[in-house]
């Protein structure tokens, strides 16, 4: 019998295990297999294969039963996920339904998840700005979190590395707040966006309007064609899955690349229960998995483990990985695991009209828009709140038709719309401050359908966020006014935290093991063969979108891990 057990153990043993197959897990899979490691990729959801498993990707608008509108039952049964902007009749299949995966909202938190191979990389809005040294040095300067153990220079070559492979469109703008990257040609501006850009440049030295940087292939390079990906076709229905691979997803890019090495084993329906810690060896030896279909618990073993379950679920896995050595969660000697969770604040927006440029309009569609990098409190503290916000910006024209009449007159007017003026809009992307009081923990009484404790989420806005909302509204109104926009309207939708889908932290990086969970290599201070390279590792949140940073950190950590394995450091 002992012989058989050893055999089974050998069969379940790999060089590396990656937990999660989303943006960062896909990169871990690609890097580790690319370096020759036999890698098991665990995904709790079902398999989603590029092209064949995008059921709505080629559907015309009229082919949807309700022309896109959500079914009442789906809406009523999913009050949380229904709030997400990308959840509609064509995308339901890629979102976690509320009832299937419960969690405890100690304070209101809209947790948006995609449990399938590729995770949320199928659904993301694809904005990919680098973080700058203002972001990595910010906490030390402002004292709002612990100091990051890395600086921009540590990540810069890795940003370049992942950008070239993923395919990022953008313009080299030469801004210190937003370092340039390895860009494919930028998307085109429209006349009113250019107008706004010039007006802002003329009036403010330190405020810039630039074309968004996004994970779209505007001009395929050989590396993209080798992945089987083609030029972005401007369909702007990305969230249904792109059959061209025009935008970056794990499904179209990193996972098939990893599969081609012959070193990857992808195991869907694998809900990770915990990481196994061996007290004698003083290291993690594997992962306990509950098969989502059979509900059987199984163990898999490896020399290194990459945890990429998405920020809050990575916290959950660590918290649930208890042992005599780590009674409060794996690597949690500091007691900060699950704490200092932060997110982005997308509450506010400003819209207006513009009566100029009425002789021009736009043609085609663009899966991207201009962007206003953070300009508040960059060089010095100038407001009564910490940190700042970036903003999205775009302009367009709306066709209107008179819908008053009935009969042939109405029909005639519907088919002969007139172009209204230009509308402009902006939304804020504010940095929130990581605080001990914003935390996640395991609920002691409630279990999920797999018998794993539910995650209890206790996260809220604070006074800093309120001040930031107000400042964004005021500053954007001032900029819009300067550009000659009229009928300016500000909003604050007071959405719950979480709906921005940029939750970060809980297993933060830091120099001091007493106040952080991970070191500068995204390695658990206390368990050197476990790496966390998704949003859980973020010490602070910046104002930029985080996905590109997860990619760069993952590639960097994988490189370190494999080199370290050889040197015996891991």
């Amino acid at each position, binding site marked *: 019998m002992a012989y058989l057990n050893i055999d089974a153990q050998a069969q379940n043993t790999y060089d590396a295990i990656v937990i999660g197959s989303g943006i960062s897990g896909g990169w871990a899979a690609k890097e580790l297999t690319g370096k020759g490691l036999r890698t098991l990729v665990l995904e709790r959801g079902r398999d989603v294969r590029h092209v064949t498993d995008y059921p709505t990707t080629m559907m015309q608008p009229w082919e949807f039963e309700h*022309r896109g509108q959500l079914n*009442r039952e789906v809406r009523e049964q999913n009050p949380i996920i229904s709030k997400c902007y990308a959840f509609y009749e064509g995308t339901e299949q890629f979102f976690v339904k509320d009832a299937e995966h419960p969690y405890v909202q100690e304070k209101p938190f809209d947790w948006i998840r995609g449990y399938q191979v590729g995770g949320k990389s199928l659904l993301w809005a694809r904005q990919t700005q680098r973080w700058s040294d203002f972001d990595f040095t910010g906490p030390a300067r402002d004292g709002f979190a612990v100091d990051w153990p890395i600086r921009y220079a540590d990540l810069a070559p890795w940003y370049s590395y992942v950008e070239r492979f993923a395919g990022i469109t953008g313009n080299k703008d030469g801004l210190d707040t937003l370092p340039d990257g390895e860009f494919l040609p930028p998307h085109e501006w429209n006349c009113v966006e250019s107008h706004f850009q010039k007006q802002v440049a003329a009036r403010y030295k330190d405020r810039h309007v630039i074309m968004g940087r996004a994970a779209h292939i505007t001009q395929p390079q050989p590396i993209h064609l080798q992945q*089987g990906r083609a030029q972005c076709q401007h*369909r702007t229905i990305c969230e249904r899955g792109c059959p061209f691979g025009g935008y970056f997803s794990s499904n179209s890019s990193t996972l098939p690349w990893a599969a081609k090495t012959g070193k990857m084993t992808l195991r869907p329906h694998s809900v990770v229960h915990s990481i196994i810690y061996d007290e004698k060896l003083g290291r993690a030896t594997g992962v306990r998995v509950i098969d989502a279909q059979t509900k059987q618990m199984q163990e898999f073993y490896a020399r290194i483990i990459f945890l990429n379950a998405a920020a809050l679920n990575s916290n959950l896995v660590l918290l649930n990985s208890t042992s005599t050595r780590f009674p409060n969660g794996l690597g949690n000697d500091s007691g900060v695991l699950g704490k200092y969770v932060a997110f982005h604040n997308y509450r506010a927006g400003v819209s207006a009209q513009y009566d100029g440029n009425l*002789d021009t309009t736009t043609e085609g569609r663009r899966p991207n828009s201009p962007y206003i990098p953070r300009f508040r409190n960059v060089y010095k503290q100038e407001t009564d709140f910490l940190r700042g916000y970036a903003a999205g910006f775009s302009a367009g024209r709306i066709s209107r038709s008179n819908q008053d009449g*009935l009969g042939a007159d109405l029909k005639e007017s519907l*088919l002969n719309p007139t172009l209204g003026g230009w509308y402009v809009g902006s939304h804020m992307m504010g940095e929130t401050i990581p605080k001990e009081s914003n935390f996640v923990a395991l609920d002691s009484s409630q279990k999920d359908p797999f018998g794993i404790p539910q995650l209890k989420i206790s996260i809220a806005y604070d006074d800093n966020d309120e001040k930031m909302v107000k400042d964004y509204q005021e500053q954007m109104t001032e900029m819009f006014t300067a550009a000659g926009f009229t009928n300016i309207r500000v909003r604050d939708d007071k959405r719950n935290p979480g709906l921005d889908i940029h939750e970060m932290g809980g297993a933060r990086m830091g120099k001091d093991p007493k106040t952080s969970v991970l070191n500068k290599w995204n390695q658990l201070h206390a368990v050197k063969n476990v790496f966390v390279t998704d949003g859980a590792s973020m010490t602070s949140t910046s104002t930029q979108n985080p996905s590109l940073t997860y990619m760069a950190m993952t590639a960097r950590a994988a490189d370190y891990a494999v080199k370290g394995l050889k040197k015996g450091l891991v």
Partner: protein
Amino acid sequence: MAGAVGGLISLPAWASGWTSETVRPLNPFLSRSQDELLADLAETIIPATDTPGAKALNVHQFIQKVVADCYDKPSAETFRKGLAAVDELAQKSFGKPFSQGDTTQRIGVLNQLAQSTDADQKNFYSMVKGLTIRGYMSSEYVMTNLTHYEMIPGRYHGCVPVPAKPISQTK
């Protein structure tokens, strides 16, 4: 290079699996006669001219499906009540069921609904009109032949002159 991209051309089975039959509601929300009345209402709002009207484009089936599947119960109830009121109003106005009226008589009934002091009737009117416009404008016929929807534009031009004619009159 051609090899790498070639793999994208084979389409999965679902891509050609859709037909208009598969989107018919499983449990019809309205009886056949109510469905016909709804069709005549939609046709009155957007009639056949030199192009098909709402009835030929099955806009009434879309309306029925959206109300049955997507609307909350009170709105669906308002819809049913409104539909029942149509024939009563028609009988009062011109002594026949709505469907037997001529265009002027039918439009007269719709205007009565629009101006009704009964909130349900007014809401019913807005609902049917709004859904008729939506169903018509998002129908395959209109999007393909009249408004020239492009699934795959492949481009974005930010500053082009405003076209001289509305898109429905080009091509």
